[in-house]
Every structure is written in structure tokens, then in C-alpha cells.
């Protein structure tokens, strides 16, 4: 497999193609117990003429942490945003291939995007709470989905779920390890929280709609080391219940928190995927080795 190092995006020789095929077959056979939570096959994304993701295939096991690493512009964020179809919002993006969630194709007609995004939640790079109170931030999703009713009509009809709402807010904040810090000021504006607290609030907000998969796009890159370590601990806890896919620039972070790691390199190619220990200690591709040891990227 060591000749993968010479495989670049523009070589189209038969040997290189075969190598790719072999690698892909191997990744698909990446051994884990049970069915994959997310199965990605031959995913290609173009932004106009720019080929952002090149034939990516990989399976993500459930209730684990999968880290996506790679240099800037290698397509890892694009890949992440394909998993809950957030790339649909980019008008220039063209997406081919297949992504299956619990065996069900998400790129087909008739997919309920509301349901998909409830099941596959997302936390963004910079904390982006709404300019509302902490309580409102968490109640926002469930309210909009009609799961919790607090409107005037509901109150008039005596159907308001204020107890459920309080429970939900507390549970989500506890899961995001934020409750004790903010329990006395749930009605304060979320923009008054610190950066790390805001990011955990965003996580709590994401948990409020009951996701199965949580996508994180460099969730700690805008935070200081203490806030980062809190988020990392949190991710480890979350993996017991949720499937976490995290994009990160920080290789130490990937090594610390993830169960398996996928390495993307320039050109939107997935170059290596496997157990985190194996990827970091014994990478099969010399380019990955060079990237991990900091010689390039």
C-alpha cells in the first residue's frame, strides 16, 4: 500500500486507479460490530468547477466518535455538511453519490429534511446561539417542530407544556454540562455567556430535538484550552449515546477523543480511514504519515 503516496488527484494511470479501488474496498470492510450508522458511497461534490469531494466512501459505526482530519480546503467540512444535507443550502453545490442513514438513502426524492436534520444535528465552528434567552435557545427547535407547545393558543386551551419545557431545558443543559453554570439565569440573553459556554449551549440546543448523530465542525477552534478540554470531555460522554462525527484541525485532539479517524488530503480525496490508533501510529500511506508528523499540510 505504500505506493499510495504517489497517487495524486491528477494521475489517472491504471495502477493508481486500482490502488484507490483496493483502498476503498478495504475501508468499506473496516471492521466494526453491527450495522453502520452512516454509510457513504462514492460521494462527489462540486462547487461550480471546483471538485471539492472526490469519490469518498466510508462507513461510520454507531455510538462512536469519528474524527475527520486534513489540511485546510481538503473537503472535510464539505463532507460533514453532506451528512445532514446542509450543502443543499449552497446553490452552487452539486452532489452525487449515496449517503445512507441506518440503511436509508438520504439523497433521494421525498426525504423529509426536517426529520433528517432532527436525527442528524450539527454544531458549528463558531458558537452561534440565537439572540434570545438561554431557555428560548433550547426551546426553539422543539417549539418549531410542535413537540412542545407554549404559544398563546396552547395556554388558553390549557395545553401548554411548561413542565415538559422546563424538564427538557434542564436535561439538555445537563447533557451539555452547562446546567450548573447557568441554572440561575435561564432567562438571560445567551449572548452574555462566554465563548465556551455559548458553544456548549449550541450543543444543548442541538440535543434538544433528540438527534442520533451529532456533526461537529471544529467545535473547539474558537475556544481557549480550558473550554476546549470541557468540550472534549463532553464529546467522550456523548459517544455513549450518540454517533459523533467531528471535523478538527487539531491532530492531538483527534487522537485524544476519536475511535476512528479519516484523513482527507488536498483535492477532496479520502486517503486513509481506520482505527485512530492505527492511523496515527502506523499509517499506511506515506503522505498521511508526512501530514501527521507535520512535514506537510
Amino acid at each position, binding site marked *: 500500500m505504500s505506493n499510495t503516496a504517489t497517487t495524486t488527484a491528477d494521475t489517472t494511470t491504471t495502477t493508481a486507479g486500482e490502488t484507490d479501488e483496493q483502498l476503498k474496498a478495504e475501508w468499506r470492510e473496516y471492521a466494526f460490530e453491527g450495522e453502520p450508522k452512516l454509510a457513504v458511497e462514492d460521494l462527489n461534490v462540486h462547487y461550480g468547477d471546483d471538485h471539492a469531494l472526490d469519490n469518498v466512501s466510508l462507513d461510520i459505526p454507531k455510538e462512536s466518535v469519528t474524527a475527520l482530519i486534513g489540511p485546510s480546503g481538503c473537503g472535510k467540512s464539505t463532507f460533514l455538511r453532506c451528512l445532514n444535507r446542509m450543502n443543499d*443550502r449552497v446553490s452552487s453545490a452539486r452532489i452525487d453519490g449515496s449517503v445512507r442513514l441506518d440503511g436509508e438513502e438520504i439523497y433521494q426524492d421525498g426525504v423529509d429534511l426536517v*426529520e433528517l436534520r432532527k436525527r442528524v*444535528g450539527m454544531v458549528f465552528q463558531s458558537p*452561534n446561539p440565537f439572540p434570545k434567552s438561554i431557555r428560548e435557545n433550547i426551546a*426553539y427547535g422543539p417549539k*418549531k417542530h410542535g413537540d412542545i407547545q407554549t404559544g398563546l393558543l396552547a395556554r388558553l386551551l390549557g395545553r401548554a407544556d411548561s413542565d415538559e419545557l422546563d424538564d427538557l431545558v434542564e436535561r439538555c443543559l445537563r447533557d451539555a454540562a452547562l446546567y450548573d453554570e447557568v441554572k440561575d439565569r435561564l432567562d438571560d440573553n445567551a449572548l452574555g455567556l462566554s465563548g465556551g459556554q455559548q458553544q456548549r449551549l449550541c450543543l444543548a440546543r442541538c440535543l434538544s430535538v433528540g438527534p442520533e448523530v451529532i456533526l461537529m465542525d471544529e467545535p473547539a477552534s474558537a475556544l481557549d484550552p480550558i473550554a476546549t478540554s470541557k468540550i472534549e470531555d463532553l464529546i467522550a460522554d456523548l459517544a455513549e449515546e450518540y454517533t459523533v462525527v467531528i471535523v478538527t484541525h487539531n491532530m492531538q485532539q483527534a487522537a485524544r477523543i476519536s475511535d476512528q479517524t479519516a484523513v482527507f488530503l488536498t483535492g477532496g480525496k479520502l486517503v486513509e480511514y481506520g482505527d485512530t490508533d492505527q492511523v496515527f501510529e502506523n499509517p499506511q500511506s506515506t503522505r498521511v504519515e508526512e501530514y501527521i508528523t507535520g512535514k506537510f499540510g
Partner: protein
Amino acid sequence: MASATERSLVRGESSGGDLTAASAVGLAGIMFTLAMVVVFQQLSLTDTIAGVRLVGFLGVGLLALGLSVIGLGVASRSGVLSATPRASAGLLSGAVSGLLWAVVGGLAGARVLGLGTVGWLLCAVVVGAGAASFTVLTREDVGTTVPAGAFTALIGLVVLVAIGPSWEWALGWEQQPASLTAPITVPAMTLAGSLVGGWAAAVAYGGFGARGRHLGAYLLVYLNAGTIVGVLLVLIGFTVFKGLPGLFRGVEVGLGVGRQVTVEHYLFLPFIDFAPGVSLAFDLPFKWPFVMAGVSLTNDVNGVWPAIVGTVWLVLGAVLLAIPLGVGAAVFLTEYAERGRFTQLVEVATNGLWSTPSIVFGLFGAAFLVPRFANQKSILAGTITLGFMLLPLVVITTRESLLAVPDEYRDASAALGVSKWQTIRSVVLPAAIPGVTTGVILGVGRIAGETAPILLTMTGAVALPANQSLNVLGSFRFTATPPFVANEALLQATTALPYQLYALITAGVGQSSNISDIDQFRWTTALVLLVVVLSFYAIGIATRYYFRQKLTHE
């Protein structure tokens, strides 16, 4: 000047030079203020200050300012003053100095030497070029101070020696016998002299170089901003000063002196089950004729109540029409439409609509709306016309504030599976409200004072008696036939403050009407208009503040 001084981080204790420069700046400020006061005729040139006539005071002040500025420059050049001048004052200073001195040269050529057209033009060019090259070619301290100081001192000298309070210069234009007189010329020259001298003194105070230039620019910009505040204060102050005496004429406070107010049964209906037709009447405990009366023969003091009512309904109606339409259009353009030809077209159309002269809107209203509403001028036609005028500004400002809402909010909401419309309604629009409010305030300020459109679409008699003021709420009736609601008041021609003011000033309406003190009445009407517009403004600011607080503090 040792290099150690030049490079020292902390400036030394204030020296005599600093003190001179600072007092020169102060003197320039005093001259500027005095000139402004004379321009607004609060002091006359022949008034005396400490036994000296004002015109002499101005002359001596400018002379002293100019000479001290020159002194500062020379002191710096000869090394007495610690300063860090550059090699040249720069091209911009050179150009300004050249222009100023060209004016001086031309005037001197024409007036003092009595040269013909070619002669004074030549004189202006030579003097201007000389001053410009002197400014550019000498070291900064001399180049800055000497032309500026000499200019200021020369003005002082001219004011002192050549121009008395009764000086007059007939311009000799054939068609128009115009002339310059001392009360305008002297303060104008003083303004110019104090600005130039003050700038040079500020540059000298900063020790020339980067810091000096910064201080010079700071002084000019500061005076600029101050002038704007001054103009606003003078404008409002003048109107208040002229209008206030009429405002409180005939005010009485006491039980039962005021107008009878009737609260109709329909206002109770939601709360108390009154029999139809029953209404409650009581007398107001005060009487304020100018605000609460109209114009009629039997009034002791005439008032503008019908015009106030007309203005308020007009503005409310226009805002109610423009906000939903405008916000809707802006939401469509920013959130739904793909950027392309169509959105660009709409953008151009919106900007064009905003720049359309108001009289064109008025003409459109008169030709299109008036024939369709019972073929008579009406408040409805006026409101719709003004609503159309307000519409483009609402669209523009709403678009801008929607674009300013961070995309992160939209992403976050979409990632929760919330639909686009729900996102817009509960996240994007609330975050944009402060901006929208600002736009509406600006627009209301414009339309509330607009005369031309309502002149053509809405107004009937100029000055109405109080009992003919609009009664929009009280005129609602349910009818048996479609559209099931009728409101005659909306189809009634009425008056509004700006129109009433316009009509009373022009067309001789005032002279033939039964308003006794017409001049006082106009000014007080203007004051009331100002207050009404400013109260809309205040409501807008309060709204914006409320929503901003809600967004950031909750």
C-alpha cells in the same frame, strides 16, 4: 535642537511656545464664535465689547492671531521652539495656500491697483503661485505658518483699516443691483481668517510633523461637526423662539373649562355591555386653544387641531401601508430570490422610486388615485400616495438590516430542521427590527413634512374649524352590502400641518382669513409641526431601543 530632544518619547514641560500656540488656537476659537454670532445677527458690528467696537475687536484679534502664528513658525525655524517639522508642508497645503492667496492677489489687483480683467487675473495667478511654491518649497514649519499667518493678519488689517461698519461694495452687475455689505463681509472674512489661522496654530501646537498635522485636521473636523450641531440648534431654536409665544395663548386650567369629550358606546363595547347609542360625555379640565381648537370666526384664539389630526392619520396610514409591503418585498429579495437580473432590477427600481420627486408622486395620486376614490381629494388618496413614497425606503433599509443578520443564525436554525419561513419569522426578522425601525423613522421624518403630494391628493379648505376634523374611528359603520364596512371619514378632504403652513404663507390665504395675528400663527404652526415630527421620531427611537435591549439583554 539636540537630536535627543527630537527623539524623546515624552514631550517636555509646556514651554512658552506651547503656551503661545495654545492661546492662538483659543483666540481662533473666540474669533470663529464671534463671527458666527454676528452671522446670526445676535450681535452687531457696532456693538462695543469692553469699550471697543466689535469690528475693531475682530480686526485686532485676527491681526494678533496671524502675527503669533508667523512668530511660532519663525521661532521653530530658528530652533527656539522644540518641534519636529518635515521637509515640506505638502502639496495639499500648498494648493490650499495658493488658492487663498490667489483670491487675495486678485482682489488686491482689482480693488487696490485698479487693474482690468487681464491685470487682476495675472495678479491672482502670480500671487497664488508664489504662495503655493513658498508653502511647498520651504521647510514645513515656515511653509505652514507664514502664508497662513500672513493671510489671517492681512484680513485683520483690512477689517481694522479698510472696512468700517458702513462699508459697502456694489458689485456692479447690470441686471441685478447686488452689493456686499459689512455685516456679511466682515464675519465671513473673520470665519475664513480664524479657520486658517487656527489650523496653522494647531499644527504649530502639535510641533508640526505627523502630530501637528493630526491636530490641525482634528481642529477642522471638530469645527465642522460643531457647525452641524450649531445649525440644528439654531434652526430649532429659531422656530421655538418665534413660535412659542403663540402656543400657550388662551390656556386655561380648571374644572369644566375645556372642550366636551364624548366617549362613544363602541369604545366601551368590548368591556361593558352598554346599550347601543349610550355614550359618556365629560369636560376636559383644561383648555389649550392653539392645539385643541380649529379656525373659526367665533374663536378668541384660533388653533390647528384639525391639521394635527390630519397629519397623524396621514402618517399612521402611510406607515401601516408601507411596512407590510416593504418588509415583505425585502424578505422576498434577500431570503428567497436568487441573486440575479430580477433582484437587480427590483433594486434599481427601489432606488429610483426613492429619488423620485415628491410632486411626481402627488401628480400620480391626483391623476390615478383621486378619480378612483369617489372622485374627490381624500385622506385615503393622500395616505396611499405617502405610503408609496415611504415604501422604497422601507425596502432599502429592511434589505440592509436583513443582510446584516449573520448567516450563522440561519445555518443554526436550518441544522435544527426548522423551515425557512419559520427561521425568518422567529430569528431573522426579530434580529433585523432595530434596523427596520431606523429606516421607518427616517422615512416618517420625510413624509410627515411633505406638502406637494397631499396638496394634490388630500387637502380641501386650508383652516378648518375643530368640529370638521377627521373622525376616522367614529365613522366606522357596518353595512348590509359588500364590503360590509363603511367609513366616510376616509373619503373626506382634510388639512395637514405642512399644507396649512404652506397655504398660510403663500397665496394670500392668511390675509383673507379670520386669523388675526397671521405671522404668529404661522410660526406656531411650524413649531407644532416640528413637535409632531419629532414625537414620531422619539417613538421610533424608543422602539429601536426597546428591541435592541431585547436582542442583547432580554
